[in-house]
């Protein structure tokens, strides 16, 4: 304790001591705070019959950055007392979660402390922090960025990743904490910025390449765990006029882990996108193939723990409560995906465009499994067997096993000064057995629609009404469910939802909403989820109080979105930045 006080005092003294006039003048401080607090209540109606001694959950952070010219430093303090429902219990605790200091003069940038960065699209390296998910895989160590000439950037990173509150020093780490060291380098060359004659060319091109490795100790009694695992990626971006093309390929050597069931196969990933855009029209086609590309700095890591890389899902992100109940999550062991999105605005002043233009959007995305063929390994036919090469996979073959498909069409129209309508139709296929692990549960095949109408009462006040429906093709009232499988049918079947919001710009928003699972095959799950919310915003400060039942999903009220876990009770969110 005394040591800490001493440290704070010394820091303060240095701060004041260095208060030469010019230094102070250039000093700037900014930061932000957020506290999310929940009070939980019993609610037999939605099966919350025991709070397990947990009446409160509080997640909070405070962060301060200091900058002075080319120098900047910051800290982030976090408190989970205890963590809110739906967040990992390992977060429980209080402390200084993150700190950094950076010097960057344009030619060279050096950072020590906690590093967030990504190489290319993140297929071999990405560290980031997402507060609403309680996720943070920052790399504590050092980073050097060099920009030797226009358009060339070279980066190197070295460190150990954050694992909730686990200590970083080897001698302090617990016996079952096998986190390794992550090292990486990346180079990018943008030809247009680097070659003067190409500066204003219609043709654009940039290239990049990265290499990342982890050094881990082999603690396994059964398998030889490679102590160095390397992964490399190469990328290319091309553009000509309104056209753009980009691609990235990544390769990882054998990396047996809990996620891939300790097989010794190499990993591969390929992503590509092609887009065309001009005023009023934009289209993009994306394809992706990943095979055994989970890459963690601890081979026993589960879920999203200690991910070194990031495999981006390429489907549409829904924000309304019913479609966002079935959000696709990336399958780390392999998938093939494609997406097409088209945005078009019918011009102002035409018959269909009206006075304000009419905005249309179409999106289609589909994800299937990759094909896995059995191979001979040590004289045995194997498929996915621990300790073997696992399987062989034809790069271009697509499995018949479909994980997900989403076809949707959206129209957005300002009718006149006071009325605004937004509507969307969604056709959804969601393999709930694979994505959420409900063994044997039938696939969700549903039609979803919503209408969102805003009426401006006057310059400051407005009303918004949102009506949504979700209708499953197969599972609804009357569908036979065995008593033992009932749990897998929570949230299944047909839904209706409504929301009414009254806003007084720029400070206030009041809303009431209900979601009703009226068509659940199990009678006791035909529940209502009522909520009421009040939001007050003043400049960069937001206070939100809501009460009622919340099912899992993304909620947008008062103009801000975040994901929320299921609960019943009262939630208070206070956030500010300065």
């Amino acid at each position: 304790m005394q040591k800490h006080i001493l440290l704070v005092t010394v820091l303060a003294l240095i701060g004041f001591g260095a208060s030469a006039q010019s230094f102070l003048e250039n000093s700037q401080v900014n930061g932000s705070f957020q506290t999310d607090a929940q009070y939980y209540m019993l609610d037999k109606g939605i099966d919350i019959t025991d709070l397990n001694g947990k009446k409160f959950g509080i997640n909070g952070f405070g962060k301060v950055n200091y900058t002075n010219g080319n120098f900047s430093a910051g800290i982030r303090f976090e408190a989970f007392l205890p963590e809110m429902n739906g967040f990992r219990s390992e977060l429980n605790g209080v402390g200084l979660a993150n700190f950094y200091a950076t010097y960057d003069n344009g030619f060279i940038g050096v950072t020590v402390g906690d590093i967030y960065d990504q190489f290319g699209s993140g297929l071999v390296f990405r560290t980031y922090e997402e507060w609403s998910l309680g996720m943070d895989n920052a790399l504590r160590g050092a980073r050097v960025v060099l920009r030797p000439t226009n358009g060339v950037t070279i980066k190197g990173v070295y460190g150990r990743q954050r694992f909730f509150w686990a200590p970083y020093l080897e001698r302090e780490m617990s016996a079952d904490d096998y986190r390794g060291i992550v090292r990486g380098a990346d180079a990018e060359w943008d030809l247009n910025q680097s070659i003067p004659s190409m500066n204003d060319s219609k043709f654009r091109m940039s290239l990049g390449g990265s290499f990342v490795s982890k050094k881990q100790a082999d603690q396994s009694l059964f398998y030889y765990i490679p102590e160095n695992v390397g992964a490399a990626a190469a990328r290319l971006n091309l553009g000509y006029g309104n056209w753009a093309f980009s691609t990235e390929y990544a390769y990882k050597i054998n990396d047996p882990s809990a996620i891939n069931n300790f097989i010794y196969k190499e990993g591969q990933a390929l992503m590509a996108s092609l887009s065309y855009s001009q005023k009023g029209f934009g289209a993009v086609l994306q394809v992706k193939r990943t095979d055994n590309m989970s890459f963690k700095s601890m081979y026993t890591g589960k879920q999203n723990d200690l991910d070194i890389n990031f495999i981006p899902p390429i489907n549409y992100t829904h924000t309304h409560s019913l479609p966002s109940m079935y959000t696709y999550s990336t399958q780390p062991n392999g998938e093939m995906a494609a997406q097409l999105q088209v945005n078009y605005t019918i011009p102002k002043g035409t018959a269909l465009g009206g006075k304000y233009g009419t905005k249309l959007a179409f999106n289609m995305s589909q994800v299937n499994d990759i094909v896995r063929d059995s191979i001979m390994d040590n004289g045995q036919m194997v498929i996915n067997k621990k300790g073997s090469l696992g399987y062989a996979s034809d790069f271009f073959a697509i499995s018949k096993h479909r994980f997900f498909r989403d076809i949707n069409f959206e129209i957005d129209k300002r009718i006149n000064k006071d009325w605004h309508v937004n509507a969307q139709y969604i056709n959804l296929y969601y393999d709930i057995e694979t994505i959420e692990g409900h063994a044997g549960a039938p696939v969700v095949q549903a039609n979803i629609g919503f209408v969102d109408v805003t009426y401006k009462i006057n310059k400051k006040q407005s009303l918004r009404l949102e009506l949504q429906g979700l209708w499953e093709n197969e599972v609804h009232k009357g569908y036979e469910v065995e008593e033992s499988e009932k749990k897998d049918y929570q949230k299944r079947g047909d839904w209706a939802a409504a929301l009414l919001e009254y806003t007084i710009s720029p400070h206030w928003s009041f809303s009431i909403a209900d979601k009703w699972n009226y068509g659940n095959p199990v009678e006791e799950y035909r529940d209502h989820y009522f909520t009421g919310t009040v939001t007050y915003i003043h400049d960069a400060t937001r206070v939100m109080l809501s009460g009622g039942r919340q099912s899992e999903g993304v909620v947008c009220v008062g103009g801000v979105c975040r994901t929320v876990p299921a609960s019943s009770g009262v939630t208070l969110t206070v956030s500010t930045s300065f």
Partner: protein
Amino acid sequence: MKKLTALLLLALFATGLYAQSKTDLPNVTLKDLNGKDVNIAKLSNNGKPIVITFWATWCAPCIKEHNALNDVYQDWVDETGVKLYAVSIDDSRSTAKVKPVVEGKGWDFDILLDVNSDLKRAMNVSNPPHTFLIDGSGKIVWQHTGYVEGGEEELYEEILKVAKKKK
């Protein structure tokens, strides 16, 4: 430990008060839609105000806000000379969609890509949409989080204040 916590919170609070003074834009480099580097600290609009909005293709209120801003943007430019930079915090999931979405919706703003959330962190943005107003000398003078229908009116009043001060 509790004392240390209290001390740290107090320190944070104190720095918060101190920081009410206007701050500069951070030294962060982003890319525009053509892949060109843009250093945020060096943004300038010849002494006229600059607006920076944070948004994402998956953020419904952000799309609403930008549709509304787009309807009035040309009038604002004519009256105040303001320039708007819309910073997309889309990560590699949806970076490729940003340009088609922006063009498809017909927005007239300058778009910057904050793929690694560097600017989002440096400017302490928690949730999009989040809007900053920068005066003619490059200082952040006002910010606002969230968007509700008609919210652009408040922004415009603030822009007018800054634009008038300059004259």
